[in-house]
Protein backbone atom coordinates (compact mmCIF):
# COMPACT_ATOMS: atom_id res chain seq x y z
CA UNK A 1 0.00 0.00 0.00
CA UNK A 2 1.42 3.38 -1.01
CA UNK A 3 1.17 6.05 1.73
CA UNK A 4 -1.19 8.93 0.96
CA UNK A 5 1.62 11.52 1.12
CA UNK A 6 3.57 9.92 -1.71
CA UNK A 7 0.55 8.71 -3.71
CA UNK A 8 -0.17 10.35 -7.05
CA UNK A 9 -3.44 11.94 -8.09
CA UNK A 10 -4.59 11.56 -11.70
CA UNK A 11 -3.22 15.03 -12.42
CA UNK A 12 0.11 14.17 -10.78
CA UNK A 13 0.35 11.04 -12.88
CA UNK A 14 -0.34 12.92 -16.12
CA UNK A 15 2.22 15.61 -15.27
CA UNK A 16 4.75 12.97 -14.32
CA UNK A 17 4.11 10.97 -17.47
CA UNK A 18 4.66 14.05 -19.63
CA UNK A 19 7.85 14.97 -17.78
CA UNK A 20 9.33 11.48 -18.00
CA UNK A 21 8.45 11.17 -21.66
CA UNK A 22 10.13 14.47 -22.50
CA UNK A 23 13.29 13.46 -20.64
CA UNK A 24 13.61 9.89 -21.87
CA UNK A 25 11.20 9.24 -24.76
CA UNK A 26 9.60 6.48 -22.70
CA UNK A 27 5.86 6.68 -22.35
CA UNK A 28 3.78 4.75 -19.86
CA UNK A 29 0.23 3.82 -20.72
CA UNK A 30 -2.39 4.39 -18.01
CA UNK A 31 -2.50 0.60 -17.63
CA UNK A 32 1.05 0.80 -16.19
CA UNK A 33 -0.13 3.08 -13.41
CA UNK A 34 0.47 0.63 -10.56
CA UNK A 35 3.98 -0.23 -11.82
CA UNK A 36 4.86 3.47 -12.03
CA UNK A 37 3.28 4.44 -8.70
CA UNK A 38 5.20 1.79 -6.77
CA UNK A 39 8.53 2.84 -8.20
CA UNK A 40 7.90 6.54 -7.72
CA UNK A 41 7.02 5.85 -4.10
CA UNK A 42 10.39 4.11 -3.75
CA UNK A 43 12.22 7.07 -5.33
CA UNK A 44 10.43 9.68 -3.20
CA UNK A 45 11.25 7.90 0.03
CA UNK A 46 14.79 6.86 -0.95
CA UNK A 47 15.61 10.50 -1.69
CA UNK A 48 14.32 11.59 1.73
CA UNK A 49 11.19 13.45 0.62
CA UNK A 50 7.90 13.20 2.48
CA UNK A 51 5.60 14.02 -0.42
CA UNK A 52 5.41 13.39 -4.14
CA UNK A 53 5.04 17.13 -4.73
CA UNK A 54 8.30 17.94 -2.95
CA UNK A 55 10.21 15.23 -4.78
CA UNK A 56 8.73 16.10 -8.18
CA UNK A 57 9.57 19.77 -7.67
CA UNK A 58 13.20 18.90 -6.93
CA UNK A 59 13.30 16.51 -9.88
CA UNK A 60 12.09 19.17 -12.31
CA UNK A 61 14.43 21.78 -10.87
CA UNK A 62 17.22 19.56 -12.14
CA UNK A 63 19.94 20.50 -9.68
CA UNK A 64 20.09 16.96 -8.28
CA UNK A 65 20.75 14.76 -11.34
CA UNK A 66 20.87 11.67 -9.10
CA UNK A 67 17.10 11.97 -8.62
CA UNK A 68 16.47 11.55 -12.32
CA UNK A 69 19.02 8.76 -12.67
CA UNK A 70 17.47 6.79 -9.81
CA UNK A 71 14.05 7.27 -11.35
CA UNK A 72 15.29 6.00 -14.72
CA UNK A 73 16.92 3.05 -13.01
CA UNK A 74 13.65 2.18 -11.29
CA UNK A 75 11.40 2.58 -14.30
CA UNK A 76 13.38 0.74 -16.94
CA UNK A 77 12.94 -2.98 -17.35
CA UNK A 78 16.22 -4.86 -17.26
CA UNK A 79 15.44 -8.53 -17.09
CA UNK A 80 17.41 -10.59 -19.59
CA UNK A 81 19.64 -13.66 -19.82
CA UNK A 82 22.52 -15.06 -21.85
CA UNK A 83 21.81 -16.26 -25.41
CA UNK A 84 18.29 -14.82 -25.42
CA UNK A 85 16.66 -15.03 -28.87
CA UNK A 86 19.72 -16.99 -29.91
CA UNK A 87 18.57 -17.44 -33.50
CA UNK A 88 19.58 -13.84 -34.11
CA UNK A 89 23.12 -14.64 -33.05
CA UNK A 90 22.97 -17.54 -35.53
CA UNK A 91 22.03 -14.98 -38.17
CA UNK A 92 24.90 -12.78 -37.06
CA UNK A 93 27.45 -15.55 -37.49
CA UNK A 94 26.00 -17.31 -40.52
CA UNK A 95 24.75 -14.46 -42.68
CA UNK A 96 25.49 -10.97 -41.42
CA UNK A 97 29.17 -11.09 -40.51
CA UNK A 98 30.14 -12.82 -43.78
CA UNK A 99 28.36 -9.98 -45.62
CA UNK A 100 30.07 -7.38 -43.46
CA UNK A 101 33.49 -8.88 -44.15
CA UNK A 102 32.80 -9.09 -47.87
CA UNK A 103 31.57 -5.49 -48.02
CA UNK A 104 34.64 -4.24 -46.18
CA UNK A 105 37.14 -6.08 -48.35
CA UNK A 106 37.62 -9.26 -46.33
CA UNK A 107 40.01 -10.24 -43.51
CA UNK A 108 43.41 -8.64 -43.83
CA UNK A 109 42.17 -5.82 -46.03
CA UNK A 110 39.79 -4.10 -43.64
CA UNK A 111 40.50 -0.64 -42.24
CA UNK A 112 39.56 -0.78 -38.58
CA UNK A 113 37.71 -3.40 -36.55
CA UNK A 114 34.28 -4.89 -37.07
CA UNK A 115 32.12 -2.90 -34.64
CA UNK A 116 29.08 -4.37 -32.90
CA UNK A 117 26.72 -2.41 -30.65
CA UNK A 118 24.21 -3.74 -28.11
CA UNK A 119 21.72 -1.05 -27.12
CA UNK A 120 20.26 -1.25 -24.55
CA UNK A 121 22.65 -3.74 -23.05
CA UNK A 122 21.10 -3.88 -19.57
CA UNK A 123 23.29 -5.96 -17.23
CA UNK A 124 25.52 -7.11 -20.07
CA UNK A 125 24.10 -10.47 -21.05
CA UNK A 126 23.58 -9.45 -24.68
CA UNK A 127 27.00 -7.99 -25.54
CA UNK A 128 28.72 -10.78 -23.63
CA UNK A 129 26.58 -13.39 -25.42
CA UNK A 130 27.77 -11.92 -28.71
CA UNK A 131 31.36 -12.09 -27.48
CA UNK A 132 30.96 -15.72 -26.41
CA UNK A 133 29.37 -16.79 -29.67
CA UNK A 134 32.17 -15.10 -31.63
CA UNK A 135 34.95 -16.58 -29.52
CA UNK A 136 33.50 -20.07 -29.43
CA UNK A 137 32.03 -20.41 -32.91
CA UNK A 138 33.14 -17.79 -35.43
CA UNK A 139 36.06 -19.06 -37.51
CA UNK A 140 37.22 -15.55 -38.46
CA UNK A 141 37.67 -14.27 -34.91
CA UNK A 142 41.43 -14.84 -35.14
CA UNK A 143 41.64 -13.04 -38.48
CA UNK A 144 39.86 -9.76 -37.73
CA UNK A 145 39.55 -7.34 -34.82
CA UNK A 146 36.07 -7.09 -33.32
CA UNK A 147 35.03 -4.22 -31.08
CA UNK A 148 31.89 -4.78 -29.00
CA UNK A 149 30.08 -1.89 -27.31
CA UNK A 150 27.12 -1.89 -24.95
CA UNK A 151 24.98 1.08 -23.99
CA UNK A 152 22.15 1.70 -21.56
CA UNK A 153 20.35 4.65 -20.00
CA UNK A 154 20.46 3.01 -16.56
CA UNK A 155 23.70 3.60 -14.62
CA UNK A 156 22.98 0.84 -12.09
CA UNK A 157 22.68 -1.91 -14.71
CA UNK A 158 25.85 -0.66 -16.39
CA UNK A 159 27.74 -1.06 -13.12
CA UNK A 160 26.49 -4.62 -12.96
CA UNK A 161 27.41 -5.17 -16.61
CA UNK A 162 30.95 -3.99 -15.89
CA UNK A 163 31.20 -6.40 -12.95
CA UNK A 164 29.75 -9.21 -15.12
CA UNK A 165 28.79 -11.53 -12.28
CA UNK A 166 25.68 -13.62 -12.90
CA UNK A 167 23.40 -16.11 -11.20
CA UNK A 168 21.87 -19.32 -12.39
CA UNK A 169 18.86 -17.75 -14.04
CA UNK A 170 20.96 -15.56 -16.31
CA UNK A 171 23.27 -18.41 -17.20
CA UNK A 172 20.79 -21.23 -17.69
CA UNK A 173 21.32 -21.40 -21.48
CA UNK A 174 25.13 -21.20 -21.41
CA UNK A 175 26.73 -24.55 -22.34
CA UNK A 176 28.77 -26.25 -19.59
CA UNK A 177 31.91 -26.13 -21.70
CA UNK A 178 31.59 -22.35 -22.04
CA UNK A 179 30.97 -22.03 -18.30
CA UNK A 180 34.24 -23.76 -17.53
CA UNK A 181 36.13 -21.94 -20.24
CA UNK A 182 34.86 -18.37 -19.85
CA UNK A 183 33.48 -18.01 -16.30
CA UNK A 184 34.93 -18.19 -12.79
CA UNK A 185 32.89 -19.21 -9.75
CA UNK A 186 32.78 -16.33 -7.26
CA UNK A 187 30.58 -17.96 -4.59
CA UNK A 188 26.89 -17.94 -3.65
CA UNK A 189 25.99 -19.60 -6.93
CA UNK A 190 27.37 -16.74 -8.96
CA UNK A 191 29.86 -16.78 -11.82
CA UNK A 192 31.94 -13.94 -13.16
CA UNK A 193 32.84 -13.62 -16.81
CA UNK A 194 36.55 -13.82 -17.45
CA UNK A 195 38.25 -10.42 -17.39
CA UNK A 196 39.68 -10.93 -20.87
CA UNK A 197 36.11 -10.78 -22.22
CA UNK A 198 34.51 -8.23 -19.93
CA UNK A 199 37.42 -5.85 -20.37
CA UNK A 200 37.07 -6.10 -24.13
CA UNK A 201 33.52 -4.71 -24.11
CA UNK A 202 33.18 -0.92 -23.96
CA UNK A 203 30.15 0.33 -22.02
CA UNK A 204 28.38 3.68 -22.46
CA UNK A 205 25.68 5.35 -20.41
CA UNK A 206 23.45 6.72 -23.13
CA UNK A 207 19.85 7.55 -24.02
CA UNK A 208 18.97 6.19 -27.44
CA UNK A 209 16.62 9.14 -28.04
CA UNK A 210 19.29 11.75 -27.29
CA UNK A 211 20.67 12.69 -30.69
CA UNK A 212 23.55 14.78 -29.34
CA UNK A 213 24.70 12.07 -26.92
CA UNK A 214 24.35 9.34 -29.54
CA UNK A 215 26.93 11.09 -31.74
CA UNK A 216 29.68 9.27 -29.82
CA UNK A 217 28.47 6.02 -31.40
CA UNK A 218 29.39 5.74 -35.05
CA UNK A 219 30.61 3.44 -37.81
CA UNK A 220 29.00 0.31 -36.37
CA UNK A 221 28.69 -2.69 -38.66
CA UNK A 222 26.01 -4.44 -36.61
CA UNK A 223 23.57 -3.12 -34.03
CA UNK A 224 21.36 -5.10 -31.70
CA UNK A 225 18.48 -2.97 -30.42
CA UNK A 226 16.03 -5.48 -29.08
CA UNK A 227 12.86 -5.06 -27.06
CA UNK A 228 13.21 -1.36 -26.33
CA UNK A 229 11.38 0.41 -29.14
CA UNK A 230 8.15 -1.22 -27.93
CA UNK A 231 8.32 1.12 -24.91
CA UNK A 232 8.39 4.24 -27.08
CA UNK A 233 5.61 6.15 -28.78
CA UNK A 234 5.87 6.71 -32.52
CA UNK A 235 7.76 9.96 -32.33
CA UNK A 236 10.39 8.64 -29.93
CA UNK A 237 10.71 5.46 -31.97
CA UNK A 238 11.39 7.54 -35.06
CA UNK A 239 13.99 9.56 -33.20
CA UNK A 240 15.63 6.37 -31.91
CA UNK A 241 15.62 4.88 -35.42
CA UNK A 242 17.28 8.00 -36.82
CA UNK A 243 19.94 7.88 -34.10
CA UNK A 244 20.63 4.19 -34.75
CA UNK A 245 20.94 4.94 -38.46
CA UNK A 246 23.50 7.64 -37.68
CA UNK A 247 25.49 5.20 -35.56
CA UNK A 248 25.76 2.69 -38.41
CA UNK A 249 27.97 2.47 -41.47
CA UNK A 250 26.18 2.50 -44.82
CA UNK A 251 25.30 -1.15 -45.42
CA UNK A 252 25.34 -2.01 -41.70
CA UNK A 253 22.76 -4.33 -40.13
CA UNK A 254 20.23 -3.81 -37.34
CA UNK A 255 18.55 -6.52 -35.29
CA UNK A 256 15.29 -5.71 -33.48
CA UNK A 257 13.37 -7.89 -31.01
CA UNK A 258 11.24 -10.65 -32.50
CA UNK A 259 8.01 -8.76 -31.85
CA UNK A 260 9.26 -5.46 -33.24
CA UNK A 261 9.13 -4.17 -36.80
CA UNK A 262 10.95 -1.19 -38.23
CA UNK A 263 8.40 -0.90 -41.02
CA UNK A 264 5.94 0.55 -38.51
CA UNK A 265 8.49 3.05 -37.26
CA UNK A 266 10.53 4.47 -40.11
CA UNK A 267 11.20 3.77 -43.82
CA UNK A 268 14.91 4.61 -43.64
CA UNK A 269 16.07 0.99 -43.24
CA UNK A 270 15.80 -1.77 -45.82
CA UNK A 271 14.39 -5.06 -44.50
CA UNK A 272 16.47 -8.12 -45.43
CA UNK A 273 14.96 -11.57 -45.08
CA UNK A 274 17.42 -14.14 -43.74
CA UNK A 275 16.71 -17.81 -42.96
CA UNK A 276 16.75 -16.84 -39.26
CA UNK A 277 14.37 -13.89 -39.68
CA UNK A 278 14.27 -10.24 -40.64
CA UNK A 279 17.24 -7.94 -40.21
CA UNK A 280 17.31 -4.27 -41.23
CA UNK A 281 20.04 -2.68 -43.31
CA UNK A 282 21.12 0.92 -43.61
CA UNK A 283 21.07 1.37 -47.40
CA UNK A 284 24.53 1.23 -48.92
CA UNK A 285 24.02 4.27 -51.13
CA UNK A 286 23.04 6.49 -48.23
CA UNK A 287 26.24 8.28 -47.37
Amino acid sequence: MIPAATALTETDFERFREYFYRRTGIQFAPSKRYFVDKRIDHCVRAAGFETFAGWFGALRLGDRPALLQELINQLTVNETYFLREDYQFDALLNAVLPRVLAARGGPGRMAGPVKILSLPCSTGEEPYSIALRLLAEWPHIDLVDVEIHGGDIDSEVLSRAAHASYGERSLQRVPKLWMSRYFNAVGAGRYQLDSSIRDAVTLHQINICDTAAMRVLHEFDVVFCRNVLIYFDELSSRRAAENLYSAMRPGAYLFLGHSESMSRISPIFKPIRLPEGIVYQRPTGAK
Partner: protein
Amino acid sequence: MGLVRKAEPEPELPVVSPEDLIRQLDDPDREARRAAALGLEGVADAVEALLDRIGVEQVPAVRDAMLTTLAVHDTDRVAAGLAVHLASDDAGLRTAAAEALATMPISVPALVPRLLEDPDPDVRVMTAIVLADLPHPESLTWLAVLIKDDPHPNVVATAIDALLPSLGPEHRELLEGAVRRFPDDPFLRFTVEAALR
Protein backbone atom coordinates in the same frame (compact mmCIF):
# COMPACT_ATOMS: atom_id res chain seq x y z
CA MET B 1 43.16 -10.28 -33.76
CA GLY B 2 40.06 -11.23 -31.77
CA LEU B 3 38.03 -9.16 -29.35
CA VAL B 4 39.56 -5.76 -28.87
CA ARG B 5 38.60 -2.93 -26.58
CA LYS B 6 38.13 0.45 -28.14
CA ALA B 7 41.60 1.95 -28.01
CA GLU B 8 40.87 5.54 -27.01
CA PRO B 9 37.92 7.45 -25.61
CA GLU B 10 35.92 9.45 -28.13
CA PRO B 11 37.15 13.01 -28.62
CA GLU B 12 34.77 15.77 -27.54
CA LEU B 13 32.53 16.56 -30.47
CA PRO B 14 32.25 20.23 -31.36
CA VAL B 15 28.98 21.97 -30.52
CA VAL B 16 27.48 23.50 -33.66
CA SER B 17 25.22 26.53 -33.29
CA PRO B 18 21.63 26.40 -34.58
CA GLU B 19 22.51 29.06 -37.14
CA ASP B 20 25.31 26.91 -38.53
CA LEU B 21 23.07 23.85 -38.52
CA ILE B 22 20.44 25.74 -40.52
CA ARG B 23 23.12 26.69 -43.04
CA GLN B 24 24.25 23.05 -43.06
CA LEU B 25 20.78 22.04 -44.31
CA ASP B 26 22.02 23.15 -47.75
CA ASP B 27 25.33 21.28 -47.57
CA PRO B 28 26.06 19.26 -50.72
CA ASP B 29 26.84 16.22 -48.54
CA ARG B 30 23.63 14.37 -47.72
CA GLU B 31 24.98 13.04 -44.42
CA ALA B 32 25.83 16.58 -43.31
CA ARG B 33 22.28 17.71 -44.18
CA ARG B 34 20.83 14.76 -42.28
CA ALA B 35 22.99 15.44 -39.22
CA ALA B 36 21.92 19.10 -39.32
CA ALA B 37 18.25 18.16 -39.48
CA LEU B 38 18.56 15.88 -36.45
CA GLY B 39 20.72 18.39 -34.61
CA LEU B 40 17.97 21.00 -34.88
CA GLU B 41 15.64 19.06 -32.59
CA GLY B 42 13.80 21.47 -30.30
CA VAL B 43 15.02 24.61 -32.12
CA ALA B 44 11.84 26.57 -32.83
CA ASP B 45 13.70 29.05 -35.02
CA ALA B 46 14.57 26.24 -37.43
CA VAL B 47 10.97 25.29 -38.22
CA GLU B 48 10.61 27.55 -41.25
CA ALA B 49 13.98 26.51 -42.68
CA LEU B 50 13.06 22.85 -42.32
CA LEU B 51 9.57 23.32 -43.77
CA ASP B 52 11.08 25.17 -46.75
CA ARG B 53 13.28 22.18 -47.54
CA ILE B 54 10.83 19.31 -47.07
CA GLY B 55 9.45 19.71 -50.56
CA VAL B 56 12.80 20.07 -52.30
CA GLU B 57 15.03 17.60 -50.43
CA GLN B 58 15.62 14.67 -52.78
CA VAL B 59 17.22 12.17 -50.38
CA PRO B 60 14.53 10.25 -48.47
CA ALA B 61 16.77 9.63 -45.44
CA VAL B 62 17.48 13.37 -45.11
CA ARG B 63 13.82 14.24 -45.60
CA ASP B 64 12.80 11.72 -42.94
CA ALA B 65 15.27 13.23 -40.49
CA MET B 66 13.76 16.67 -41.17
CA LEU B 67 10.26 15.29 -40.62
CA THR B 68 11.26 13.60 -37.37
CA THR B 69 12.64 16.89 -36.07
CA LEU B 70 9.63 18.89 -37.25
CA ALA B 71 7.07 16.48 -35.80
CA VAL B 72 8.42 17.04 -32.29
CA HIS B 73 7.12 20.61 -32.42
CA ASP B 74 3.55 19.45 -33.06
CA THR B 75 2.38 23.04 -33.68
CA ASP B 76 -0.29 24.40 -36.00
CA ARG B 77 2.41 25.92 -38.21
CA VAL B 78 4.24 22.60 -38.63
CA ALA B 79 1.01 20.67 -39.18
CA ALA B 80 -0.13 23.11 -41.87
CA GLY B 81 3.32 23.15 -43.45
CA LEU B 82 3.36 19.36 -43.72
CA ALA B 83 -0.28 18.90 -44.70
CA VAL B 84 0.31 20.68 -48.03
CA HIS B 85 2.51 17.73 -49.03
CA LEU B 86 -0.41 15.31 -48.75
CA ALA B 87 -1.27 16.57 -52.24
CA SER B 88 2.24 16.00 -53.61
CA ASP B 89 2.77 14.04 -56.82
CA ASP B 90 5.80 12.46 -55.13
CA ALA B 91 4.48 9.31 -53.46
CA GLY B 92 7.46 9.11 -51.11
CA LEU B 93 6.98 12.69 -49.96
CA ARG B 94 3.23 12.46 -49.35
CA THR B 95 3.62 9.17 -47.49
CA ALA B 96 6.46 10.53 -45.37
CA ALA B 97 4.41 13.65 -44.59
CA ALA B 98 1.43 11.49 -43.61
CA GLU B 99 3.61 9.38 -41.29
CA ALA B 100 4.94 12.52 -39.60
CA LEU B 101 1.47 14.06 -39.25
CA ALA B 102 0.26 10.83 -37.62
CA THR B 103 2.69 11.48 -34.76
CA MET B 104 1.29 14.97 -34.05
CA PRO B 105 -1.86 14.51 -31.97
CA ILE B 106 -1.87 18.06 -30.60
CA SER B 107 -1.97 20.08 -33.79
CA VAL B 108 -3.31 17.75 -36.48
CA PRO B 109 -6.89 17.35 -35.13
CA ALA B 110 -7.64 21.00 -35.87
CA LEU B 111 -6.76 20.37 -39.53
CA VAL B 112 -8.79 17.22 -39.94
CA PRO B 113 -12.24 18.73 -40.68
CA ARG B 114 -10.75 20.72 -43.57
CA LEU B 115 -8.78 17.71 -44.86
CA LEU B 116 -11.92 15.54 -44.78
CA GLU B 117 -13.59 18.09 -47.07
CA ASP B 118 -10.62 18.56 -49.42
CA PRO B 119 -11.80 18.49 -53.05
CA ASP B 120 -8.86 16.24 -54.03
CA PRO B 121 -9.72 12.61 -53.24
CA ASP B 122 -6.00 11.76 -53.06
CA VAL B 123 -5.66 14.17 -50.16
CA ARG B 124 -8.59 12.49 -48.43
CA VAL B 125 -6.94 9.09 -49.02
CA MET B 126 -3.80 10.40 -47.32
CA THR B 127 -5.93 11.84 -44.51
CA ALA B 128 -7.34 8.38 -43.86
CA ILE B 129 -3.75 7.09 -43.69
CA VAL B 130 -2.90 9.79 -41.14
CA LEU B 131 -5.97 8.91 -39.08
CA ALA B 132 -5.01 5.23 -39.08
CA ASP B 133 -2.14 6.00 -36.71
CA LEU B 134 -3.06 9.34 -35.15
CA PRO B 135 -3.36 8.75 -31.39
CA HIS B 136 -6.50 10.83 -30.84
CA PRO B 137 -9.91 9.85 -29.43
CA GLU B 138 -11.74 11.20 -32.50
CA SER B 139 -9.65 9.30 -35.10
CA LEU B 140 -12.11 6.42 -35.40
CA THR B 141 -15.06 8.81 -35.62
CA TRP B 142 -13.41 10.70 -38.48
CA LEU B 143 -12.68 7.46 -40.31
CA ALA B 144 -16.33 6.48 -39.86
CA VAL B 145 -17.35 9.82 -41.40
CA LEU B 146 -15.23 9.06 -44.47
CA ILE B 147 -16.68 5.56 -44.78
CA LYS B 148 -20.24 6.82 -44.41
CA ASP B 149 -20.14 10.00 -46.48
CA ASP B 150 -17.12 10.30 -48.77
CA PRO B 151 -18.13 10.24 -52.43
CA HIS B 152 -14.97 8.52 -53.70
CA PRO B 153 -14.62 4.71 -53.38
CA ASN B 154 -10.80 4.84 -53.01
CA VAL B 155 -11.16 7.10 -50.00
CA VAL B 156 -13.78 4.83 -48.47
CA ALA B 157 -11.66 1.72 -49.06
CA THR B 158 -8.61 3.37 -47.49
CA ALA B 159 -10.67 4.46 -44.49
CA ILE B 160 -11.93 0.89 -44.07
CA ASP B 161 -8.33 -0.38 -44.16
CA ALA B 162 -7.40 2.22 -41.56
CA LEU B 163 -10.27 1.15 -39.33
CA LEU B 164 -9.40 -2.56 -39.53
CA PRO B 165 -7.30 -2.84 -36.33
CA SER B 166 -10.20 -1.39 -34.33
CA LEU B 167 -13.01 -3.09 -36.23
CA GLY B 168 -15.85 -4.48 -34.12
CA PRO B 169 -19.39 -5.81 -34.62
CA GLU B 170 -20.69 -2.27 -34.22
CA HIS B 171 -19.06 -1.36 -37.54
CA ARG B 172 -20.89 -3.99 -39.63
CA GLU B 173 -23.73 -1.67 -40.66
CA LEU B 174 -21.25 1.10 -41.51
CA LEU B 175 -19.29 -1.18 -43.83
CA GLU B 176 -22.33 -2.75 -45.42
CA GLY B 177 -23.64 0.76 -46.05
CA ALA B 178 -20.42 1.56 -47.94
CA VAL B 179 -20.99 -1.41 -50.25
CA ARG B 180 -24.55 -0.25 -50.90
CA ARG B 181 -23.25 3.21 -51.84
CA PHE B 182 -20.82 1.76 -54.40
CA PRO B 183 -22.56 -1.39 -55.71
CA ASP B 184 -20.47 -1.48 -58.90
CA ASP B 185 -17.07 -1.30 -57.19
CA PRO B 186 -15.68 -4.85 -56.85
CA PHE B 187 -12.57 -3.72 -54.91
CA LEU B 188 -14.63 -2.00 -52.25
CA ARG B 189 -16.91 -5.03 -51.99
CA PHE B 190 -13.84 -7.27 -51.59
CA THR B 191 -12.39 -4.93 -48.95
CA VAL B 192 -15.58 -5.02 -46.91
CA GLU B 193 -16.03 -8.77 -47.26
CA ALA B 194 -12.45 -9.34 -46.15
CA ALA B 195 -12.95 -6.99 -43.20
CA LEU B 196 -16.14 -8.68 -42.06
CA ARG B 197 -14.82 -12.22 -42.52
